[in-house]
């Protein structure tokens, strides 16, 4: 059902936009080309910013430092969730990778898999978003944008743990 809805949203939106434009007598093809021209410029202009953030994050992951942090976990949360918590704001694909790993290791119906799912599904790749969005217009002084993102991420982690306990812990037998 949900996959069906997700499948329909995008095409229906496009159809709606195009139909409305046609009714309003907008030259759809010419306007499309005009808009599309910007796509190339924007994509190229974010390369340096992407290189910086992706290189730094990849090195951090490869260094094995996340495994150290696991040792600090206590009985509030399963220790294997720690790398996910740290990775989530840094890299979307890495977070999905860790989440898949947890689901494979513990089973998709386990408490830890559900907690991981809520964590991944309710947050965003903060650092990536900041680098790409600010990078596209050449902003170097982020002011309080980074702090806002981090506070939201921490809140998100705490809430995810709390809501997961509320919904799923009782039935998991932990």
């Amino acid at each position, binding site marked *: 059902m949900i996959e069906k809805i997700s499948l329909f949203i995008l095409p229906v939106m496009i159809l709606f936009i195009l139909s409305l434009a046609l009714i309003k007598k907008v030259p759809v093809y010419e306007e499309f080309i005009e*808009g599309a021209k910007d796509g190339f410029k924007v994509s*190229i202009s974010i390369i340096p910013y992407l290189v910086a953030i992706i290189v730094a994050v990849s090195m951090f992951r490869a260094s094995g430092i996340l495994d150290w942090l696991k040792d600090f976990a206590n009985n509030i949360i399963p220790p294997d969730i720690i790398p996910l918590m740290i990775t989530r704001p840094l890299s979307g694909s890495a977070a999905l990778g860790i989440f898949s790993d947890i689901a494979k290791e513990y089973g998709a119906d386990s408490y830890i898999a559900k907690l991981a799912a*809520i964590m991944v599904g309710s947050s965003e790749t903060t650092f990536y978003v900041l680098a790409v969005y600010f990078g596209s217009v050449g902003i170097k002084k982020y002011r309080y944008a980074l702090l806002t993102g981090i506070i939201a991420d921490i809140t998100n982690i705490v809430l995810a743990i709390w*809501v997961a306990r509320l919904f799923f812990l009782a039935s998991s037998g932990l």
Partner: protein
Amino acid sequence: MNYIFFILIAVSIIAGIFNNTLDKVVNSMLGACNTAVEISLSLIGIMAFWLGIMRIAEKSGLVQVISKILYPLTRYLFKDVKKDSPAVGDITMSITANALGLTNAATPIGLKVMKELQEDNPEKDRATDAMCMFLGMNTAGFQIIPATVIAILVGFGAKNPTEIIIPTLIVTTLSFITAITTALILQRIWRKYD
């Protein structure tokens, strides 16, 4: 950002030496350069497509209609955006696209918003309050249906993968509100230091 960039790299290299993973650190450093370029190249097509579609939506007046409906809210959260700026409508579109989980659509619209906000920015390398608020909303990642996560759960044989939707929605809504509130508070505090 300067500190974060430095700390991430310095800590990785030092940890690499102690962990005996220095070879992995170096390899991933070199590999990541290519990954970054691949990501931006793979963005070109979808960016061009969405900016094209968005241009049509803008010309047909759709964006204006949506922004008019949500105008009071956007107005309150983005005080320094000019009334006739196209950013007001695009901010709404961007958040809507994100909420629907249309990440591919949301990024181009979001970047368009940044461009429009940058036009009214007196200091071109410094973020405005509107930009910080917009990115705060974006980094909170408000999403109604976490389609990718559900897809992965289904892939690993979850019995009832959709049961995470409600808890996820609760968490994502609360963190979205937290992000907006935080940005509003920090806006006041930061003004004293600028």
